[in-house]
């Protein structure tokens, strides 16, 4: 006949099983799915944002159970997002200073495979914008907020 547990015993029992689960789950050696078997950014984003229907989410959840790498990505997104400050209004149209600097750095870092690729489609649309004004604008960049 099954003995009825006291409240204290139930608490201890829960603690015991909780500890065992904790240790067992951590001790499992994660599988390493093939590189192309990982969930891509598009699906990870849709999953974390809760936009997938159950049928769409089912294969993602199954994958996250076995793939430590993808699960870790989703966990980090959840954690970082919860610590991230609420989004402010989009930056007002203040010209291309930042993006131009970025593109200059990028252009210095790699050589496009075709010549026409060197001409980015994102050149400064204001021809009178000088390097000095770019520098001024960058230096006045608002606080990063972190």
């Amino acid at each position, binding site marked *: 006949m099954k003995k009825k547990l006291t409240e204290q015993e139930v608490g201890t*029992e*829960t603690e*015991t099983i909780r*500890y*065992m*689960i*904790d*240790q*067992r*789950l*951590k001790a499992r050696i994660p599988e390493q799915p093939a590189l192309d078997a990982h969930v891509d*950014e*598009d*699906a*990870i*984003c*849709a*999953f*974390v*944002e*809760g936009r*997938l*229907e*159950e*049928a*769409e*989410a*089912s294969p993602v*959840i199954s994958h*996250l*159970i076995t793939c430590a790498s993808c*699960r*870790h*990505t989703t*966990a980090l*997104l*959840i*954690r970082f*997002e919860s610590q*991230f*400050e609420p*989004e*402010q209004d*989009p*930056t007002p*149209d203040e010209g*291309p200073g*930042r*993006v131009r600097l*970025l593109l200059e750095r*990028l252009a210095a*870092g790699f050589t496009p495979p*075709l010549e026409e*690729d060197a001409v*980015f*489609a*994102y*050149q400064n*649309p204001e021809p009178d914008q000088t390097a000095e004004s770019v520098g001024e604008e960058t230096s006045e960049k608002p606080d990063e907020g*972190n």
Partner: protein
Amino acid sequence: MPESRIRSETSSFEAESLNNLAACASQVDAIFAECAKAHPDFDLSPAEFRDAIERAVRKYLMTQRVTPSREQVGRFIGELQDRDLYLALACGRGNEQAWWEFDRQYRSFIERWARHLVRSGSDADEVIDFVYVELLGTRVVDGVRQSKFRTYTGRGTLRGWLRTVMLHAVVDLYRGRKDEISLEEWSGSAEETRERHGSLTATRGTEELMLVNVVRERYRAATMTALDQSLASLDDHETLLLLYYHVEGLKLREIARIVEQPRSPIRRWFQRQSKLRAGQSPGRVHESTVMRWLEKVYKKVSDHFHAELANKHGLNPAEIEICKAIATEDPAQGVRLDSCVTDSEGFNTEEAEGRRVEGAS
């Protein structure tokens, strides 16, 4: 099944699915018209937009070998982040105005998120540069630049997608570094995770008799088998949430946030488990609710675990207690098998062991 029949069924499934997509053409055209009206200078053709929608439908609705109905396809299209998709497609094909719009909307966010992920300013700049390179695309195939934007389908928000792309960029950046510091280390979030993850290393008593060690090992093996079986009996949602809590170190309130997502399948599952009607369910899920849910899962595992040990391994309650004691023992104390392993019928450890834990190891 003959290969020709499989091919036939595949093409039939595909044809029916695409027919249902074609039936939504007016819906797609209307969305496109709205987007084009808002941004006439993005220079995107209706055909390109339709192709992108088809790619999304194929990716998310045509994977289960079940033909999505016209209504399902229509709902799916209606849920797409169409403005984000329109912008991403235009950026992906290198439209200058689209890039200015992208920069206006997301520049600040990209910089803030990069600095949120990594504390070092120079690393953040490196991540931003890397992501912009990916977004621009450095490879050209058949005259088309392979922009990262081409992988965005509009199922989630562009902002969420950028978050994920940047997180992967950070992981890739640091993976190559010699010191192999974890992402939590760079971002400073390691401490709280470590606190919860402080684990006890099980050590084996070196002074016990060999016989006791054999018995102990068999009980241990039975325990692990039963525990694995119990964990395997959980459904996928339960397992994933346990993994988030115990392995990834997510806190209750962070898990509550996943469950809070209005359309999250995990939330829907959670509501079913909690026997909440959607109408009664508050928008907010509290940590205590998640805690209660976790306790239910622990109870489920516990019940299954006891049943496994009793029914499959033939252990009596006293032996099950020994299994649990071995699994959770304080390495400094050890478990006295010789004194406590006697069942109600008076079998000693060796006899009980020989009878009951067969095949456990």
